[in-house]
């Protein structure tokens, strides 16, 4: 830190302070390092230093078979592993030109929506903790635990689930699956009201989030920011509606949008998304079609040469997979479009002119997971 400061002293004006936030810092959500150029407490510029968690996932993909690589994608956005898996499996299915059976699609949809709720809960808890509210974190973890229990009952794993297989599912939904999901959804409505009571109307919360980190819709699109960040800026766009995948075309749900594109709007959008996910789950469990859960795929996957790009609406934004096949059992190239990585680019734009405390709020509101940023 001392060295960095001395080095930057010559590059920057003498009255500017360079503060290293991270990689060991309570609120950078992992190993993000942000160099803050400060004038007093006001941020004059930021520079993200990332890559501390780089594991070369894309290189690993080139040396694994299609099925072997599937568990690796869970380790990118590890708080939304199911979503990662869904994107990858669907991408490979498209590459193979097969389709998962309807029953698998519906179960996938339920799982993914539960995962979206879980991911948003983690976001809400840590975001609130960053802004100084201690208690919501524990309430959020309490609800997330219920979701993880459903995952555990379904596939034995809680965090990195590897819940889906290419072509469908490996496991049939367990006996009380619908009942568990329904119980959670019924309960969750009341729980979400607790967060609303704690935060939504709180004047300190509003003061800390209103007009902080504003992004206009144009800026969002130019910077590639997607997901709730984009929607909070007023763009009513969701891949689940725009290009439906899995079984999303069968369910009714709203796309919540914000108006100002500030941190408070992103908070409101994500809260509403949780409610909508809950509604999707409730609709889906009413009618899970019977039938097989695995499509017709062989034991050895050899997609015909060619390439595919498939993207889904992960909890954090557009999660895309660009896969090139050369006709062998291993992908020739797998490119993952990580929503966190691209959303994080907006940090500089959002943080300039704000105070140090706001940088923390902005990092929180971007909802990044460093496993996905660095891959």
């Amino acid at each position, binding site marked *: 830190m001392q060295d960095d400061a001395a080095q930057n002293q010559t590059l920057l004006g003498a009255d500017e302070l360079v503060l290293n936030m991270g990689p060991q810092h309570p609120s950078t959500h992992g190993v993000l390092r942000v160099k803050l150029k400060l004038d007093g407490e006001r941020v004059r510029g930021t520079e993200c230093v990332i890559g501390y968690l780089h594991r070369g996932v894309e290189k690993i993909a080139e040396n694994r078979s299609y099925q072997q690589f599937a568990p690796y994608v869970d380790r990118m956005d590890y708080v939304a592993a199911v979503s990662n898996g869904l994107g990858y499996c669907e991408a490979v299915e498209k590459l193979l030109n097969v389709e998962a059976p309807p029953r698998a699609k519906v179960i996938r949809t339920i799982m993914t929506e539960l995962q979206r709720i879980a991911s948003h809960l983690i976001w809400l808890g840590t975001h609130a903790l960053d802004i100084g509210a201690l208690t919501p974190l524990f309430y959020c973890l309490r609800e997330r635990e219920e979701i993880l229990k459903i995952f555990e009952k379904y596939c034995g794993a809680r965090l990195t689930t590897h819940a889906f297989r290419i072509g469908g599912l490996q496991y049939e939904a367990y006996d009380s699956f619908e009942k568990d999901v329904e119980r959670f959804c019924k309960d969750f409505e009341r729980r979400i009201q607790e967060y609303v009571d704690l935060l939504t109307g709180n004047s300190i919360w509003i003061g800390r989030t209103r007009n902080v980190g504003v992004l206009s819709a144009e800026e969002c699109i130019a*910077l*590639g920011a997607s997901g709730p960040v984009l929607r909070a800026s007023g763009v009513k766009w969701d891949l689940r509606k725009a290009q439906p995948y899995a079984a999303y075309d069968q369910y009714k749900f709203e796309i919540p949008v914000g108006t100002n594109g500030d941190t408070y709007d992103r908070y409101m959008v994500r809260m509403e998304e949780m409610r909508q996910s809950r509604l999707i789950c409730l609709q889906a469990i009413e009618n899970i079609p019977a039938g097989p859960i695995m499509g017709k795929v062989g034991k050895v996957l050899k997609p015909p040469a060619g390439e595919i790009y498939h993207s889904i609406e992960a909890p954090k934004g557009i999660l895309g997979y660009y896969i090139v096949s050369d006709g062998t059992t291993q992908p020739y190239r797998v490119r993952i479009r990580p929503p966190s990585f691209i959303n994080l680019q907006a940090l500089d734009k959002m943080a300039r002119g704000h105070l140090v405390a706001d940088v923390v709020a902005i990092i929180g509101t971007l909802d990044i997971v460093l496993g996905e940023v660095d891959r």
Partner: protein
Amino acid sequence: MADEPKAPQSPESPKPDSAGAKSAPPTAPASAEAAPFPAAKPAAPARPAPPPPKPPVVMQIPLDNDLTKRYREQFGAAILDAIEDRKQPYLVIAATQLAEIARYSRDVEKFDLLEDYTAVDWPRREKRFDLIAILYSFPHNMRLRLKIPLAADETAASLVEIWPTANWLEREIFDMFGISFNGHPDMKRILLPEEWQGHPLRKDYDILQQDTAWVRENLGIASGQ
């Protein structure tokens, strides 16, 4: 990581690559007959291994719709090819016209989101790299891929001016493939350390390879494995 000594590093593993050949055991799967360049001559695997009911026909079909016509009219010879692969269109364009085509795509064709920007390495091809730009249009709700063949010593025009989101994406391409971009405001590595030698996503970079000197110096261990 090294517990599975099975896969060759690239489909053309018989070729004596500097690094790739070292770890690739001779027991390469007998499936190396696939064409490494799918766009040129899509070789349909003759074997019935893929399970779809009909044996897959040629996945890549030439594309000639209104969109490609407009592009061809506008840029003529710079549009090298227009192909549809599994119902997803892509244009192969010349690197020299990249900036103009990108600007046209954004302003006229309304591809306002650069969804992703990456590269693929084809070491045996004359133009070694393919830059892949995945564009999305909000008004038309459709995607278009631009594929830009690039020789190893060539540089591409930076798209940061057109889509600011290209900033980090180009840095990542530079980091992983060593392709540098003209006019990028901050052309340096993003995920790997600044002093790292080599570009890991190139096909001649073995999966076990690393910058041993850097690891020893900075992490104080003999090897990262």
